[in-house]
């Protein structure tokens, strides 16, 4: 089975608008061989910085392609990624505001996973994250882990971010845990994460969150967003209108 991965831009943007959320993964199959590893990464470029979608794209790809650099020399891994971002733009003859904005750099949340069997043949997941793109581990229809550990009302406009500029560089938080057969891992950017946590914590009897566990290739994330914006919870739309991204992995051991 291939990894399930979807993304869409916010509803108020046109269908083919830029999406500042990004993801990457390797390999595409969710069956993890004994001597292989699985790498997944999701990122959410901030709406207020420029070319943040490009920054999100670079860091997800570079985590998946260069995991050993990421782990062994994070500073150097970051330098290479930031240089790739800066190389994307021509900076001659820019108006003062675009020049200053580019000098500020770009910002994104980040959540990467490395999954591999250890020497004892236990399947281990290593989670590295900065900000509020979240990991959820569902086992036998129960949410047994959320990383970061956050409630639905705790999402803010100011999460921690991975910056292109060295002076703002943060190191990721790291969490490690075991996986079992038929576990379901979901990585989501903030708006979808907030929706998922709210549905699980506060409206669990409806089991709407299960829709993301069971969704197949035909699942249309944009239609889902449109429907949830029309649905009300406590007088507000059930989801915040924002770019959405999700990567889902069903573990088969």
């Amino acid at each position, binding site marked *: 089975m291939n990894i399930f991965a979807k993304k869409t831009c916010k509803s108020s943007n046109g269908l083919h608008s830029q999406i500042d959320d990004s993801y990457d993964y390797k390999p595409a199959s969710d069956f993890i061989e004994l001597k292989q590893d699985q790498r997944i990464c999701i990122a959410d470029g901030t709406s207020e910085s*420029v070319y943040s979608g490009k920054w999100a794209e670079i860091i997800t790809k570079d985590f998946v392609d260069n995991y050993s650099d990421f782990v062994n020399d994070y500073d150097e891994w970051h330098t290479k990624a930031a240089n790739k971002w800066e190389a994307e733009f021509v900076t001659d003859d820019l108006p003062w505001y675009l020049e200053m904005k580019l000098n500020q750099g770009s910002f994104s949340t980040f959540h990467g996973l490395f999954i591999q069997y250890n020497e004892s043949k236990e399947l281990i997941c290593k989670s590295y994250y900065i900000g509020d793109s979240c990991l959820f581990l569902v086992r036998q229809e129960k949410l047994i882990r959320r990383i970061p550990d956050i409630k639905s009302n705790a999402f803010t406009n100011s999460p921690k971010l991975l910056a292109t500029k*060295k002076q703002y560089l943060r190191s990721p938080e790291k969490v490690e845990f075991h996986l079992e057969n038929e576990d379901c891992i979901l990585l989501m950017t903030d708006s979808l994460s907030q929706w998922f946590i709210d549905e699980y914590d506060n409206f669990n009897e409806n089991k709407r969150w299960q829709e993301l566990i069971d969704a197949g290739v035909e699942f249309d994330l944009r239609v889902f967003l449109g429907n949830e914006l029309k649905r009300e919870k406590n007088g507000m739309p059930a989801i915040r209108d924002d770019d959405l991204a999700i990567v889902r992995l069903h573990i088969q051991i």
Partner: protein
Amino acid sequence: MPYSALINRANPSCFIFLLDQSGSMQDVIDPSNVIPLTQPQVVDGRTYTHVADGRTKSSVVADVINRFLMNLVLRCTREDGVRDYFDIGVIGYSGNGSSTKVASVFTGNLSDRDLVSISEIAKNPSRIEEKVKKVEDGAGGLVNQKTRFPIWLEPYAYGGTPMTKALKEAHNKLEIWVANHQASFPPIVINITDGEWSDEDPDNTASELTSLHTEDGNVLLFNVHITATGGEPVLYPSSENELTDQFAKRLFNISSTLPAQIVSAAKLQGYKATEVSKGLVYQADLVELIQFIDIGTSTSSNLR
């Protein structure tokens, strides 16, 4: 819930700054190297007995507003250009009698323009200063970086303080604006002054101004009084009793109560503010002026 509208290109918001440009604004703030004059000098009706190094109140205010505009342009800048999330007005007030001047302080291509979109502000500074500043290189060192600082307004100080006329001018501009932007976050008017008005009492005019509204709430009027002579500042008072000066009490009465998100912004900056605090800072120094403007315009975080 009022004051919760999201700010976007379809529903921009609006800031108007009213700048006291009376003669007293040429006083030096934080004076140093003070030297007494052999004879007092009268300038613009004011008697001076000393000269000093330091920046004048008018140059400090111009610098603060220029930096605010620069930062707001940057907040609105995306790869496709500057997004029109805000309309901005900056109205100076000065002079006496026939020399009374209440008008937009924009110069150059924006001369005589009242409310200007943020993208037009971005494209039309009156000049750009180039400076070299030291920035961190991320490896513990510093490197020189050339930066450009756009300038839209220049310091100016002359004559009296026709504050009520300035409030009336703001009312005239916003009456039309709110009629055309009913779904928007309400406009915020920030009045920066160093002393009492020299025209009629502002109470009725201020009340008319803050009676204007969008569907999201009434126009907000905040006041900041700046001083060159020190004195204990009074910050976001909840009661007139926190102020001893009659002029300060009058400013309190015409200031709007802070909406919840601005109360939160004030608390984040370390100020004591409550749900009944007014948008008023009395006897502010430079730091408090800058923070007041940051806090008073913190609704720009409603950008979507």
